[in-house]
């Protein structure tokens, strides 16, 4: 009796586990399947759950005769630029805030923390006016600048945590050996924060890569436009026809690199995510 109950329990538990996995994975699976079907396989009352019949036609539609390649390049440029700039500025600031004597430290940390929580929409109008004033509307530089609003505070905040976690003795040893604070940062501390930099950079990159509101509002042409607004507006040959197959193909193209990155850096991302939100 007790044994049956045990197995029943186990069985129910694993059923739940299977449900969670299917629930998490199925929508993406369905997008991938849909992207490999011809339109005849999509617009049918009885769609196959495998990519049958199989075709690469949707992927061709995404790239041939469209600006999608350009959009991808823009995304790479903007997300990469914002990440790199945030990391460089962020490392310097985080070292000062986490390690050096700096009287207004708490005030600065509060500003940074409140900015990580800042609603982007609240500065949309002001940023629009600003970008027009400095002539950066509809430029890569303008978009990168606007992304600093969320990538920079995030980077600083998480890196301060990493710097604080390093043992005091390392620094003292460096000082005793006659190193200046700058040398200590570059030669001793920075190499140790390497893993932290990778994680932080990755999370900042993902946030910038996925950003929609600013990309939608601060770009007007495909020369600058990034992938998220491009996908949102992916049109068909006529306004009445929504090319779901191509939209799914484009979706898969932008998502696969992210999914791969996330799976490869799984442990670190989970640690970084919780550091950014819970532990601060």
């Amino acid at each position, binding site marked *: 009796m007790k044994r049956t109950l045990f197995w029943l329990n186990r069985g129910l538990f694993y059923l739940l586990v299977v449900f969670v996995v299917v629930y998490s994975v199925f*929508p993406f699976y369905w997008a991938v399947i849909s992207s490999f079907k011809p339109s005849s396989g*999509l617009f049918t009352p009885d769609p196959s759950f495998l990519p049958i019949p199989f075709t690469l036609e949707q992927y061709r539609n995404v790239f041939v005769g469209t600006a999608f390649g350009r959009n991808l390049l823009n995304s790479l440029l903007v997300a990469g630029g914002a990440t790199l700039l945030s990391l460089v500025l962020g490392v310097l600031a985080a070292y000062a805030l986490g390690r*050096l004597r700096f009287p207004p430290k708490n005030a600065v940390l509060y500003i940074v923390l409140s900015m990580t929580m800042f609603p982007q*929409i609240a500065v949309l109008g002001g940023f629009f006016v600003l970008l027009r004033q400095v002539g950066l509307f509809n430029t890569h530089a303008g978009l990168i600048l606007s992304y600093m609003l969320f990538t920079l505070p995030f980077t600083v905040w998480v890196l301060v945590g990493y710097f604080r976690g390093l043992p005091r003795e390392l620094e003292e040893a460096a000082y005793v050996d006659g190193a200046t604070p700058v040398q200590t940062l570059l030669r001793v501390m920075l190499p140790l924060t390497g893993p932290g930099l990778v994680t932080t950079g990755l999370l900042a990159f993902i946030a910038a890569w996925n950003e929609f509101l600013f990309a939608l509002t601060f770009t007007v042409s495909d020369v600058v436009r990034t992938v998220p607004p491009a996908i949102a507006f992916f049109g068909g040959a006529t306004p009445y026809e929504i090319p779901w197959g191509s939209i799914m193909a484009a979706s898969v193209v932008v998502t696969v690199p992210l*999914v791969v990155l996330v799976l490869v850096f799984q442990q670190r991302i989970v640690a970084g995510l919780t550091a950014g939100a819970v532990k601060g």
Partner: protein
Amino acid sequence: MLVQRQVRLAWLLVLPTLLVVVFVAGYPLAQVFYWSFYKADIALVDPPEFVGFENYLFLLRDPDFREALWNTVKFTVFSVSIETVLGLAIALIIHSNFRGRGLVRTAILIPWAIPTVVSAKMWQWMLNDVYGVINVIGVKLGILSQKVAFLARPELMLPAIIAVDVWKTTPFMALLLLAGLQLIPEELYEAASIDGATRWQQFWTITLPLLTPALVVALIFRTLDALRVFDVIYVMTGVNPATRTLAVYNRQNLIDFQDLGYGSAISVAILIITFVFVILYMRSIGREALR
């Protein structure tokens, strides 16, 4: 002497970040406050006209603003509470030791990694009124008596969008709560077991009370996120009044209607609403971090 040099160096290192912060946050924010007292178009073609509190007075009487606020509240309350319950359930599942837990953790990272715009498009396709897989499966299994136009019927639009948000964001919630669960010492459960407490009792007397700090932070964090929701709504149903949230309504006024004055007033209103939660958030995590 050395201290003074350290302070000077610290200033030097922090300065670039501070300058960027002033430029990308301080200045635009000041602009928003400034223009909220003006009648102006966003291209600033016509000379702006100072109107005092007129934009704010209009906001208080604007039924569309009220509707957007109500949509935002509905979205926030439902998505955050469902995500919390589901997230906690998934966190508990992963936290219990079993073979394949790594697989589950990997699986739930997928929705998190997918861009919001993409997840909105994926679900739009799955919710398609004729060819969507949800309708196909639903009718086949007899759950739906006939195919449903989820994204065309006003009463179903918001629930459908909430379902999409729940799918996308529950993993994040689960990971935050999992981190909280892992901080609870195992000995407490061992002691409780010896004293004869059931699993259920252990959950209510050990897990939940000790998880509360993590739960509170996660809740506030998600609430802030939900209050400013834009992407999923805009991609799935555009500016439809049935789902238009504050952020969507704000952008519509600023960009579509080019109304810098009134749009800025809405921005200030959003700031005030989120400010309360920001303070709560900073108080709950700031104190520990700023020791």
